[in-house]
């Protein structure tokens, strides 16, 4: 069978400072009808760029400099804008990472759904609406008859992601590009979306390019996997071969990440005073309670992972501990001593003891200050060091986070990579010489290899300095890697808490079980087995039955 999509020697350049730099250095790609290709790699590998180029599209400041992208015999690199417009949306469709940002906030979902079929003359509006409702039903959206008539902001992220898949299907395209469609979703929601996408792609025999950085996800979705590294292909093989016998070292290193796990620490001696004690905290935004009677302890030198989906109250708990949001009921104790609820009433020393590291190192560092200034500020503020003493302390901190002081002291955040920025965030927290650090999703914006480096660093620092961590995360792999104790939260309540080993050994609380079983595994049959286990039959079949 001939290829539906053939890419040969694709080279793409991006412009920065008036010069064109290579992003993709000659990639080949073959895709047959009905086949799903997984594109995998870390950020900067060029996955999305290739995905868009497969549609003959480049973003502003990016250009295809060489090669061909042939879709069904038409070279999209050389085709006119009008020819490409005739294909886009009709025969090649796109599903973006963030459905919330990719749906136009000004129009109802169904109006955006019918737009491509009507504009391309594939269908009229009335019948396209009917078809949309049918697709919503197939994708198991709640209230399929009504959900399309809402505005995007009235629908949850996971539902929007499925509505966008339905929208991509509206003209029954031959090829769909899925660009990290589940990255922004919670694990439990991700499963539903993955299952929906897989079933509908199979049912309509649509070819797809599935872009992701998550190996376990791609293992469920793709027939073939292509691994990319900085604009070059590393290797390509069918999914099972790739998982069981990767050839290249880089691929093996990607596969190995998940093995990292810190050894468990001995149990805390009874009667020890916890460093941080959250006692029966109920907190509200306005008049709505968002935390309900939350209690847990964090002991010296321990890591407590607070796990839950978005909206479960993890970050709100952190805000209560730091005093940014005074609890309505309950109290926070530090070393057995109750802290004032409002941070403005806490002493400088009380403030110094608890520091934070943020999810987005990009926005948490002042872009106008050098690394030396960013770390030097808390050194001076809390430690009272100035001049050469301050410089010496900053150098010491930079060494602790494994950045060469002479090289990095005068750099700006924009001159650092994502992982390095997060290290600077760690150094800034350490500068206050705290006993306790809240890490708020510190690795979720980072690639797995980089994230692992950060987790190792945090572990080493804990051993060396006896730090206690509260580790907020939605990623159970991270929990497995570094936690001593786990607190599971849902809807502002603590569902379950205890030592990590207990948490990862059955029996679990039903919700913990749902969370744990929803984390994708590298086994290509994982999703299929899980769906069967949960009693969800083949969604496509279920929909066909109803038709």
């Amino acid at each position, binding site marked *: 069978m001939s290829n539906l999509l053939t890419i040969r020697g694709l080279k793409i350049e991006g412009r920065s400072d008036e010069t064109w730099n290579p992003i993709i250095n000659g990639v080949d790609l073959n895709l047959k009808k009905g086949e799903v290709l997984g594109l995998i790699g870390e950020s900067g590998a060029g996955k999305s760029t290739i995905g868009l180029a497969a549609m003959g599209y480049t973003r502003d400041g990016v250009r295809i400099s060489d090669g061909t992208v042939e879709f069904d015999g038409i070279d999209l690199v050389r085709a006119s804008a009008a020819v490409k*417009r005739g*294909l886009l*949306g009709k025969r090649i469709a*796109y599903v973006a990472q963030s459905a919330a940002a*990719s749906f136009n*906030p000004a*129009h109802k979902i169904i109006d955006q759904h019918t737009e491509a079929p009507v504009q391309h003359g594939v269908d009229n509006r009335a019948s396209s609406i009917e078809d949309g409702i049918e697709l919503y039903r197939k994708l198991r959206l709640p209230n399929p008859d009504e959900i399309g008539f809402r*505005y995007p*902001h009235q629908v949850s992220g996971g539902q929007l992601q499925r509505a966008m898949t339905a929208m991509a299907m509206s003209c029954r395209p031959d090829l769909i590009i899925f660009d990290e469609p589940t990255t922004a979703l919670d694990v439990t929601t991700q499963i539903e979306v993955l299952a929906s996408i897989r079933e509908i792609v199979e049912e309509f025999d649509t070819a797809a390019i599935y872009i992701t950085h998550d190996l376990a996800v791609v293992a469920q979705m793709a027939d073939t996997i292509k691994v990319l590294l900085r604009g070059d292909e590393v290797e390509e093989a069918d999914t099972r071969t790739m998982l069981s016998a990767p050839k290249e070292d880089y691929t093996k290193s990607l596969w190995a990440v998940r093995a990292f796990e810190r050894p468990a620490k001995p149990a805390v001696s009874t009667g020890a005073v916890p460093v941080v004690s959250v006692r029966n905290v109920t907190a509200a935004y306005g008049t709505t309670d968002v935390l309900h009677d939350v209690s847990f302890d964090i002991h010296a030198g321990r890591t407590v992972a607070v796990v839950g989906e978005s909206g479960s109250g993890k970050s709100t708990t952190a805000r209560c501990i730091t005093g940014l949001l005074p609890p309505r009921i309950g109290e926070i104790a530090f070393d057995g001593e109750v802290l004032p609820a409002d941070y403005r009433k806490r002493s400088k020393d009380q403030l110094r003891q608890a520091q934070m590291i943020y999810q987005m190192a990009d926005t948490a560092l002042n872009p106008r200050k050098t690394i030396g200034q960013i770390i030097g500020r808390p050194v001076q503020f809390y430690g009272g060091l100035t001049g050469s003493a301050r410089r010496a302390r900053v150098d010491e901190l930079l060494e602790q986070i494994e950045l060469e002081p002479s090289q990095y002291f005068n750099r700006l955040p924009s001159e650092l990579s994502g992982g390095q920025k997060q290290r600077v965030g760690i150094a800034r927290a350490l500068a206050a010489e705290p006993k306790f650090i809240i890490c708020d999703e510190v690795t979720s914006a980072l690639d797995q290899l980089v994230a692992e480096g950060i987790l190792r660093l945090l572990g080493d620092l804990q051993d060396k300095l006896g730090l206690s961590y509260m580790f907020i995360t939605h990623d159970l792999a991270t929990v497995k890697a570094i936690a001593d104790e786990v607190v599971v939260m849902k809807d502002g309540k603590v569902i379950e808490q205890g030592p990590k080993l207990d948490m990862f050994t059955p029996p679990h609380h039903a919700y913990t079980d749902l969370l744990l079983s929803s984390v994708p595994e590298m086994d290509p049959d994982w999703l299929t087995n899980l769906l069967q286990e949960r009693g969800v039959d083949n969604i496509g079949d279920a929909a066909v039955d109803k038709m």
Partner: protein
Amino acid sequence: MDGLSSILKIVLQRLGLGLVTLFVVSIVIFVAVNLLPGDFAEAILGQGATPESVAKIREDLGLDQPMITRYFSWLKGMLTLDLGTSFAQLNFANFGGAGTTTIAEQIAPRLSNTMFLAAVTACIAVPLAVTLGILAALYRNTAFDKAANMFTLSSISSPEFFMAYVLILFLAVLNPIFPSLSNIFEGMAFSERLEKSMLPALTLTLVVTAHMMRMTRAAIINLLASPYIEMARLKGLSPMRVIVKHALPNALAPIINVIALNLAYLITGVVVVEVVFVYPGIGQLFVDSVKIRDIPVVQACCLIFAAAYILLNLTADILSILSNPRLRHPK
């Protein structure tokens, strides 16, 4: 809370805020006008002013009262929609003139003339500016975009009277299409009125178009990097549809605000154009009253200008809120 009631609440809040602003503005106007050098009595008596005659006129007009008393009696008049009587008229009556007209009767025809001119201008300028803005966004960085920008910017940068005379030269003198004098009066046929207002309206169009056009262009271009615009392009929609259907509805709030600002200017800032075309609007009345220190008329005009600004901005706020689906359709 459902969408309608929350919007109603916001509207009522804004309305209340507008009234408070108007009250504060009334104080500022009153104080500022009273700080004007010279007074009506001296201005009207000119060379023949004796201390006695000045005092007599001041007493007749209530100018000898303390400022606070005068402010409250003025405010009371305003609240009962009684704008008072102009000094000139009062004085005329005192010296045995026939019946007087109130300020309200004086201002009403002038204000309606100004509103007419503003409306004609808005009907030309707003669609023109928005269309040009959309086209400039669509063909951004092309010769068309640059030409449109250059033309509107040069017209806004030239003094209004200069633009007025250029238009008179080309459209009245060299090609007698429109009359150069806009001496409109009551009872005139609409078509004739429109024809006579055309040149001042075109002049004002040239003055206000640039601002609105550039904001339309900028607000749209600002959104072109959004993921939903990329999505619209990847659906294979035409560039025009991407801009009109996907970018424009989300760019409405800033555009509406700039339109309101310019409409307010059309009511409050048209003195020069009125003078050039001898158009009997409120701007001319205002300037004449300042000249002879006819304080009640000046104050009434100022208050009307302030109310126009506040009302138009309030309308813009409400329309901006209505353009946001998150507020119209809460979760």
